[in-house]
């Protein structure tokens, strides 16, 4: 590295915390050279542990020379999926409870504590009802000790946030909880999405703040003094201060970073990016050099938000997906992620011997559940007061080492593995699962053999005995199934249509077309699905799992240098962006017939102009200055402001301003 220490060298550190691995890369920014890469297991109970390990593991000669650290994280997505966000009270002003109920929208609000209040505006930005401030304050007093944050969304607040602002001013005088306002997160008019976005943001505030502080501490331990950036769901970067205020914007930041990293390393401006991780495979499309953005806003765990995010599809298939057998003896891959048998046996050599014994056992023939091992992922210590009796029993048994499911079921006197009652222990990462995975098959093929090859072989042997299927044919079938699942995801992602469930004698033409295109089954008709872009493979298993996919879709697979850590590269490759949307709409007379003046509604203020031109000019100028100044403050180098004006109904306009610039890398 000494030879490279010329003056213009700019070292940056990119980190991606995925579902299975936390990846880190040390990169020279200008030449796009990856100088070092490091992988560590993601610790879901505390993401900072994995990050600290990655930062420690990367050889950095002079930590003071690092000029930026950037991080993409599934923290927000995970916290929502696992219900680990903080408790939120959601105040809905001017929403119609009956209307919400009639569409069964209640469960979409992302919090069970939502309350309705009189108030709100109409679609001309005029007050539709008087705001019931007294009721808001009374409710605040009732709930303030039971929640950690408050979210407020008022009807049509993007047009006129007056009621949200008044509620904020009053509530902040009677309680000290953080308060999130809907109009500051979204200028879209969809009221349910806005409320959901505000509630999710409120529930994630302290989660992301704690995370950022933890990353900052890890940096401090290593002597890294540099700006910290966080990747948004659309792949752009924001400063950590922005991220701490609007954590919802980090939803899907991991897959977005992969896509950006894939483009950065491959220099392809049009491509399909496939990121094969341990748990999932994520799809994104790059067109004209940019990640395509979802028009509808990001969805997470069934909650629809108004957050701008990359258009993505994620399927539960990765290198560590569980290969199992369903009730009809069909082979199933995923969606559950387990520790490969090869790895478990590598850690616990006795597993290999036990698996070998199983393959020699003829009566009763061992079922594939014998391949599923549970083990203690971490010792919860001696203080077991918070656990149930069953949980204590499981921990005690597993302290003696990994154990196969049928044995475990017997030892706790249960009848079936569904009765083990270990969900909470698994969620808290105390108990881990192991089983046969694609990673094991790679060990058998000799393509990737860091761990116990024999254990993997015995695992496959048992499955092959059970299914009366010779091993080579079985392996081939599993790989074909995996390729088909990915090809199907690609077709569904690009067409936004569903390929029907496979069944032998389905009369469905779509299914026939899909299968015939992959396998040329028909004697007379040949069909083809040709992907017009190359596939860029990212993630360690991409090399093996995507070769056949590219062939099936008649395209090329590109594996750029360092493709296995492209996600971490993507965390630093994005631009810093600050955006604002300003709404301009007419102020109508009482009768609604005449235009009195024009309102200019920005995120933090509202002004009135007699002439439309003055209103538009003011919006352009003030918005330009605000986004430019915010981008400079966020650390953008020479940010450029792009203004987009959209007519939005009669005499109404939306002015979108974006200040975009590369990170400023000079000390």
């Amino acid at each position, binding site marked *: 590295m000494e030879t490279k220490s010329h003056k213009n060298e700019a070292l940056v550190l990119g980190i991606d915390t995925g579902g299975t691995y936390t990846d880190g890369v040390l990169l020279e920014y200008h030449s796009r050279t990856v100088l070092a890469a490091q992988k560590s297991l993601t610790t879901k109970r505390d993401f900072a542990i994995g990050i600290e390990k990655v930062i420690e593991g990367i050889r950095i000669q002079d930590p003071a020379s690092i000029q930026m650290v950037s991080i993409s994280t599934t923290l927000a997505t995970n916290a929502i999926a696992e219900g680990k966000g903080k408790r939120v009270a959601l105040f809905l002003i001017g929403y119609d409870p009956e209307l919400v109920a009639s569409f069964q929208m209640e469960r979409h609000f992302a919090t069970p504590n939502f309350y309705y209040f009189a108030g709100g505006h109409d679609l001309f930005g005029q007050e539709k009802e008087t705001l019931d401030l007294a009721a808001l304050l009374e409710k*605040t007093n009732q709930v303030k000790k039971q929640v950690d944050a408050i979210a407020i969304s008022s009807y049509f607040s993007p047009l006129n946030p007056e009621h949200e602002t008044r509620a904020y001013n*009053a509530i902040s005088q009677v309680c000290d909880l953080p308060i999130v306002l809907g109009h500051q997160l979204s200028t879209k008019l969809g009221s349910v999405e806005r409320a959901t976005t505000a509630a999710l943001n409120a529930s994630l505030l302290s989660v992301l703040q704690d995370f*950022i*502080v933890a990353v900052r501490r890890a940096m401090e331990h290593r002597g890294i003094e540099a700006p*910290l950036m966080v990747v948004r769901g659309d792949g752009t970067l924001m400063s950590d201060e922005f991220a701490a205020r609007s954590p919802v914007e980090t939803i899907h930041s991991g897959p977005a970073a992969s896509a950006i990293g894939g483009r950065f390393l491959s220099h392809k401006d049009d491509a399909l990016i496939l990121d094969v991780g341990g748990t999932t495979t994520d799809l994104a499309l790059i067109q004209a050099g940019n990640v395509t953005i979802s028009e509808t806003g990001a969805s997470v765990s069934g909650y629809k938000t108004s957050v701008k995010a990359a258009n993505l599809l994620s399927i539960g298939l990765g290198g560590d997906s569980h290969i199992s057998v369903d009730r009809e003896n069909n082979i199933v891959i995923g969606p559950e992620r387990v520790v490969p048998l090869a790895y478990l046996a590598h850690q616990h050599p006795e597993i290999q011997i036990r698996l070998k014994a199983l393959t020699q056992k003829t009566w009763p023939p061992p079922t594939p559940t014998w391949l599923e091992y549970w083990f203690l992922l971490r010792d919860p210590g001696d203080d077991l007061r918070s656990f149930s009796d069953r949980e204590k029993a499981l921990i005690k048994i597993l302290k003696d080492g990994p154990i196969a499911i049928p044995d475990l079921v017997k030892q706790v006197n249960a009848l079936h593995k569904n009765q083990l009652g270990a969900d909470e222990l698994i969620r808290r990462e105390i108990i881990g699962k192991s089983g046969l995975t694609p990673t094991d098959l790679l060990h058998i093929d000799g393509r990737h053999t860091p761990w116990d090859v024999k254990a993997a072989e015995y695992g496959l042997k048992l499955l092959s005995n059970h299914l009366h299927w010779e091993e080579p044919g079985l392996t081939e079938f599993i790989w074909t199934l995996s390729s088909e699942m990915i090809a199907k995801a690609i077709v569904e992602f690009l067409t936004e249509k569903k390929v029907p469930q496979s069944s032998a004698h389905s009369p469905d033409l779509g299914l026939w077309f899909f299968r015939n295109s992959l396998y040329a089954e028909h004697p007379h008709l040949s069909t083809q699905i040709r992907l017009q872009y190359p596939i860029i493979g990212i993630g360690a298993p991409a090399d093996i799992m995507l070769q056949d996919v590219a062939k099936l879709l008649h395209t090329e697979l590109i594996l750029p240098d360092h493709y296995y850590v492209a996600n971490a590269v993507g965390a630093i490759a994005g631009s810093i962006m600050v955006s604002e949307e300003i709404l301009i709409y007419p102020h109508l007379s009482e009768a609604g017939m005449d235009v009195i003046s024009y309102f200019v509604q920005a995120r933090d203020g509202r002004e009135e102009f007699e002439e439309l031109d003055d209103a538009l000019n003011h919006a352009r100028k003030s918005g330009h200055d605000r986004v430019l100044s915010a981008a400079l403050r966020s650390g953008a180098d020479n940010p450029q402001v792009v203004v987009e004006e959209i007519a939005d109904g009669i005499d109404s306009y939306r002015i979108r301003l974006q200040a975009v610039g590369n990170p400023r890398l000079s000390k």
Partner: protein
Amino acid sequence: MELIRIDTQRAYEAIRERITTLELPPGALIDEGKLALDLDVGLVPVREAIKLLVHDHLIEAPPMGLFVAEVKISELRQISEIRLLLECYCAQQAAKFATPDDLVVLEALCREQSQVPADEPRWLFELDHKFHQAIARAAHNKYLADILDDFFGLSQRLWFLALPHLEFLPAAVEKHLELVEAIQARDEGRAETIMRQHIQSFYDKVFEILQNLSF
């Protein structure tokens, strides 16, 4: 989010709390190293926090050493005189300029005060602070509000000194209610008078206690 700022803020709040609640009593010696250890932050943020507290007049930094500021009756008289003037002016301005929203807030705070159990002095103290902030806000002069908040900070320790003599608290809550009524009625004179009595009786009580404690 610079760590030094986050840690300084945390250290500042924690040390300030120890001083105002008399856990670190007037005249006590400040040990930076021990505080850093106690609060699990570095020495630098503790020093930064102490600078801020010196500015707040809660810590004294003579040429030798660092001490929690003494509560001096002579200085208290100076503080109380200014605070009396400003709070009364503020009450009068609030009666003039309070909006309906301001009144809703004041009423909500009064209602909450009347529900606080007598054995929750901290809660009552925080509410008292919020109430005075809300009056200042209702006066619609942000500079006045800032100055008053500084003065409130200077009197915080007195509150905890007076705590063992709680009998004046219900009367204070009563006064708050009367004050809100006067503001609602836009009766500037009455609002000013009530505030004067309220503040005066607080300091009278405090002086009485301090003299008995012979500070």
